[in-house]
């Protein structure tokens, strides 16, 4: 069991999700030698619903991973020795899709009387409840609908807003509905000052202490890869690369996903990988208020914006 | 003539030797017919061929039109979910219910009607099973060692009762007791080794009805004839 390991040792990098647009930079780094050029031997492993990068880090099966902020905060609350070395999404891709024909949600107050899909126990529940609290909407003023992975209730109009990953499934579903002549829009909590951080890059504290150089090289490699992958000039390469790993998704869709992803990772005058400490603190505060964690964890101590 | 077997030859699908070669026999008149022969010679097989339960033989079976032929044997069981009496009543056509009562007495089954089949002794099982067949509508009933586990006195009583009640039916009685077939059967089909020709010989029996004392010397002659034939 290796924890940290020698600089030349093999590194495992556990993603949060299946290969798709959200792993574009990771694949790019692997495919175009960003790791090897820095002397790193990295195996990129896809994630999934039963994969938890944090557990793998602790078990020594991986040295780096991607986890969402709420996972990180939960783990910190339970004493997991992990640190955040980069924040991938600047805006949370978890948003709500709706039919824009009859509605436009300029303010959360318009949610009153609507049926809103949430995954009970999921992030989207925490975010939506925080939003409702912030805008003083009593939970019984909206109908919360428990969602599953199949979209039928939304398709059939039983649910007005459906939680979705904006840059992945969001594109697919919007596209599908557009084909049938239905226009869609996305409800974005970030726009209403509920900033709940999503995917970020993590490693263990011991890895950081024993091999700070490796950690730095890894982060730099990955962020440069993302930077290049997101660059409009490289779009064709990126699309082809993602399509090679995610053959279920047509290239045209991936192109659109790429555009959406770029906006989430690189907003106007943003910097890729920037750790937005305030957003993390707000995330922690929301989780505390929603009772997801029992006591503060001081998440800023686990964030390493430039401490490398 | 109820039934005639013409030039029957048969080999079991999994067996390698012929059981019958060009066997002929017939049941011409009603009454008790015996089927006798050493163990393994093919009595059960012949009986099941007659009843239509085995096919794949060569030769021909001629049956009287709409002849009802039933085959019963001593390894059959009654279902276990209710008492023997209930099962017997259930399979008895309403018109035969008095007959059922008569048979239960004659077959000494009175103490068994409230028991489950699995709680009977072997001989009781034999008798319960035979009883239900007798209550059916049949022209020929084949009894393949149906009374093998019953004591001689009861067996005698049963045979005599059957002969009394069903004088017009055909019975083919398979048994290993020479004395019994010689005493009670009118004709005895003696089945012999396949290498003997003919494979089946018919011998006359005493066709005793249980009324008079049997003629001892005549019976012994019949027995001897049977044993010699076999």
């Amino acid at each position, binding site marked *: 069991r290796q924890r940290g390991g020698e600089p030349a040792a093999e590194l495992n990098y556990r993603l949060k999700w299946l290969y798709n647009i959200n792993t574009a930079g990771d694949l790019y780094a692997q495919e175009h030698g960003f790791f090897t050029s820095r002397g790193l031997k990295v195996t990129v492993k896809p994630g999934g619903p039963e994969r938890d990068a944090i557990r793998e880090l602790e*078990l020594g099966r991986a040295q780096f991973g991607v986890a969402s902020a709420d996972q990180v905060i*939960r783990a910190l609350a339970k004493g997991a020795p992990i640190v955040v070395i980069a924040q991938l999404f600047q805006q949370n891709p978890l948003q709500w899709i709706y039919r824009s024909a009859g509605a436009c949600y300029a303010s959360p107050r318009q949610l009153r009387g609507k049926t809103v899909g949430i*995954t009970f*126990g999921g992030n989207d529940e925490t975010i939506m409840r925080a939003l409702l609290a912030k805008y003083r909407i009593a939970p019984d003023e909206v109908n919360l609908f428990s969602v*599953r992975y199949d979209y039928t209730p939304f398709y059939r109009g039983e649910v007005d807003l459906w939680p979705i990953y904006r840059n992945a499934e969001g594109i697919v579903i919007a596209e599908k509905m557009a084909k049938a002549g239905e226009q869609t829009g996305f409800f974005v909590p970030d726009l209403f000052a509920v900033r709940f951080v999503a995917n970020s890059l993590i490693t263990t504290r011991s890895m950081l202490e024993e091999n700070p150089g490796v950690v730095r090289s890894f982060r730099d490699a990955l962020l440069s890869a993302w930077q290049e992958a997101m660059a409009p000039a490289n779009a064709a390469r990126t699309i082809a690369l993602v399509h090679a790993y995610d053959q279920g998704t047509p290239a045209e869709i991936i192109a659109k996903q790429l555009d959406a992803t770029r906006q989430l990772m690189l907003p106007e005058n943003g910097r890729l990988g920037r750790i937005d400490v305030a957003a993390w603190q707000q995330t922690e505060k929301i989780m505390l208020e929603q009772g997801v964690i029992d006591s503060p964890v001081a998440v800023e101590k686990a964030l390493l914006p430039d401490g490398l | 003539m109820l039934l005639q077997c013409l030039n029957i030859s048969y080999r079991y699908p999994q067996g390698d030797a012929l059981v019958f070669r060009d066997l002929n026999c017939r049941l011409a008149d009603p009454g008790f017919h015996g089927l006798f022969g050493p163990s393994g010679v093919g009595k059960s097989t012949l009986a099941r061929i007659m009843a239509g339960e085995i096919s794949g033989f060569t030769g021909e079976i001629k049956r009287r039109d709409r002849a009802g032929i039933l085959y019963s044997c001593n390894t059959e069981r009654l279902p276990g979910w209710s008492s023997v009496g209930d099962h017997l009543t259930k399979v008895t056509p309403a018109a035969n219910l008095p007959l059922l009562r008569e048979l239960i007495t004659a077959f000494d089954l009175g103490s068994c009607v409230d028991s489950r089949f699995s709680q009977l002794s072997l001989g009781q099982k034999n008798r319960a099973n035979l009883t239900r*067949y007798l209550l059916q509508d049949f022209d020929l009933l084949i009894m393949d060692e149906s009374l093998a586990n019953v004591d001689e006195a009861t067996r005698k009583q049963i045979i005599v009762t059957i002969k009394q009640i069903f004088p017009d039916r055909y019975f083919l009685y398979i048994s290993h007791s020479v004395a019994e077939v010689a005493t009670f059967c009118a004709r005895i089909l003696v089945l012999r080794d396949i290498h003997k020709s003919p494979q089946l010989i018919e011998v006359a029996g005493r066709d005793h009805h249980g009324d008079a004392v049997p003629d001892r010397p005549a019976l012994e002659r019949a027995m001897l004839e049977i044993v010699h034939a076999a």
Partner: protein
Amino acid sequence: MLHKRLSQFLIIYFLGLGLLLAVKYCFGLSDYVIPGFTDMQNTAQAVAAGYLRAVLDTLGVAVIGHVLAIALATVVAIVGRPDNLLGTMIKTAAYNLQAYPIVAVAPIIFILLGDGLPSRLLIAAIICYFPLLLSFIGILGEPVAGIEHFYVVTGRMRWQLEVKIRAFENIHKLITVVTGSATLAMVGTIVAEFIGADSGIGYSLRIALYQSDIAKVLVALFLIGVFNSLYLVALELLGLAVRKRMGVEQRTQQ
């Protein structure tokens, strides 16, 4: 019997727990990966009441699902018994239904039936019925020559009787399978709740998993195990009663 089943379950459960804790302390894992003992205790206290209600809820649905599954398996096994076209078609349909993972079929079920109790019951029943079906087909499809002969040759054989004979002859096996499949009814219900319901222990489990809260998962598994044992005991007692009423002998005396 109750005592035995329960204490067996407890031994197994705590053995498993001990293994997990051993892994935790050997490798110095945090409470996030494997919760510590006090963490579990606290969680247990916090969620026990709610989870208990949820498990009872689930058990109720499971019992109905189990009955449904038994009925379904019986019907399919009976109808699929004869070797005619309809029989084999129904058997094929029944087999193929099972070839699909419920997660893949569930959306279609939800489309066709909506997402009320019927869908949940159906999913529970589907998961539980297949093992029953396999045994039932095996048992109901095999003649009991010694008993059936009379009924066949006297023209008395009806399918009801045939089924009755074969079922009765294999009553011990049937009871084993029916009792054992209770467990699957529980699982089926839990999975259905996991996929699509908003109550029951399956739903609680899903939330605990979303929250990566292994302590809650372990508490839920504990309660599921306890109530599963209780249900099994109840069925075993029922099985005994049935055997007694039917006058089936005990095995050792056969």
